[in-house]
């Protein structure tokens, strides 16, 4: 199946782990631990992934053609052990964009209902 013909929306909505891994790879290739660090750093540590969730997601994302392996080499910032690097595919880039657009609509809806600016506790206070 050619990736140009695949509808990125067929994979939506993404699980939080998949979305964050895609976002971590948007600005370049990373190895598994690099993805973990990027996700933790960008979410202020609120989203943390263990190795099982990380590689389980990576496995399925590769099968879906969202990401691909981009080689194996040492990370100069760490030790001289070789690490496998991953990067987005063209299709993966389209999927993350479609998902963010979908979330944008959700946020727009929430704004219209004034969820963000309204009182925190609706009807809870005496």
């Amino acid at each position, binding site marked *: 199946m*050619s990736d140009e013909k695949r509808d990125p929306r067929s994979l939506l909505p993404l699980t939080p782990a998949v979305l964050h891994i895609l976002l971590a790879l948007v600005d370049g290739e990373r190895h598994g631990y690099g993805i973990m660090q990027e996700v933790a750093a960008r979410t202020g540590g609120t989203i943390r992934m263990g190795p*099982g969730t990380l590689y389980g997601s990576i496995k399925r994302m590769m099968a879906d053609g969202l990401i691909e392996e981009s080689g194996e*080499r040492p990370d100069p910032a*760490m030790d001289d052990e070789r690490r496998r690097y991953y990067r987005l*595919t063209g299709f993966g880039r389209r999927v993350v964009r479609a998902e963010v657009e979908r979330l944008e609509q959700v946020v727009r809806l929430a704004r219209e209902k004034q969820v963000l600016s309204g009182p925190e506790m609706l009807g809870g206070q005496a």
Partner: protein
Amino acid sequence: MTPAKEAAPFSFRVYRLLVQCYPTEFRKEWEREMLQTFRDCYREAVRQQVSQGLLRLWSLTLYDLTLSVSVEHWRAFLARWRRLFGFEERKIQVMTSLFSICVGERSDIGRVRSENEDSFLSYMPQDSDLLSKKGALFVVADGLGGHTGGEQASQLAVSAVREAYYADDGRDTATALKQAIEYANERIYQENKAKSPAASKEKMMGTTCVAAVVLGDTLYAANVGDSRVYVVRNGQVRQITKDHSLVADQVTAGLLTDEQARAHPERNKIYRCLGLEKVEVDAFTEKVQEGELILLCTDGLWQLLSDEEIGDIVEQYSPEESVQRLIEQANERGGVDNTTVVVASIGA
């Protein structure tokens, strides 16, 4: 390239046991990376604050483990059912249409050098279209030039070859592969120019480069320097590429035998490498079929092992095990250089 020599910390040993809870298939594919990543997390945790860091690491890990172990078992169970009812996965179909390739790869610093300046890469696109159009790629490079220059050059070479080869839309695989190496040369040359405009020879970095593509029933190989591609067929080892070295020319001219060349004091002198203004790349094609092996290596291997010895090992063992044994052999004989080997078996 060797794992850290320190005794494995207790946490790491426990995690290694716990990983056994995952389904076998999953483990085969991911265990190595999961352990590596866990160790990275462990180091980070210890660096921050020993007791609290470890507590946090383990609470995350145990949570992750319970969750993902059950997810993976459930997925494995579903996959088994799907197979039972004939919904084969896409990946397997791709494999049968192109034959499957099993790869072993390894690089070792050797016993004498203080740095490993070799780089290698094997790449099989996940995208089935790309795989059927461009095939699987293997690259090995042996960097030259002190400090970290050699390593940088060889690293740049392997990644640039892959980038250029898969970006090329042309139909001619041999030309695409040659141009990919020319592109790698240009990248290294530009780095050299940017670093030392005066082109002082000592500061320049360079590298050999050998690349092989398996597409359909054909092997395409291209090279610069003295890293090699071999094909092993029925126990017969045959060198596909021709070295650009002084001794290789003398062997061709009948002035030296193979054994003499391997021991010649000038055996390391090559007259072509990447990193110069212009480079000439040679290309070779060869029909291959199921059961045959392709081997790429740097001179660290072929200077210390004869073709027959290489053939003996790769015929007997799996690619993974072969590369390990080949490197051990080279190290036992002195390990005078960095050694890198990639072995790919077709249709195994």
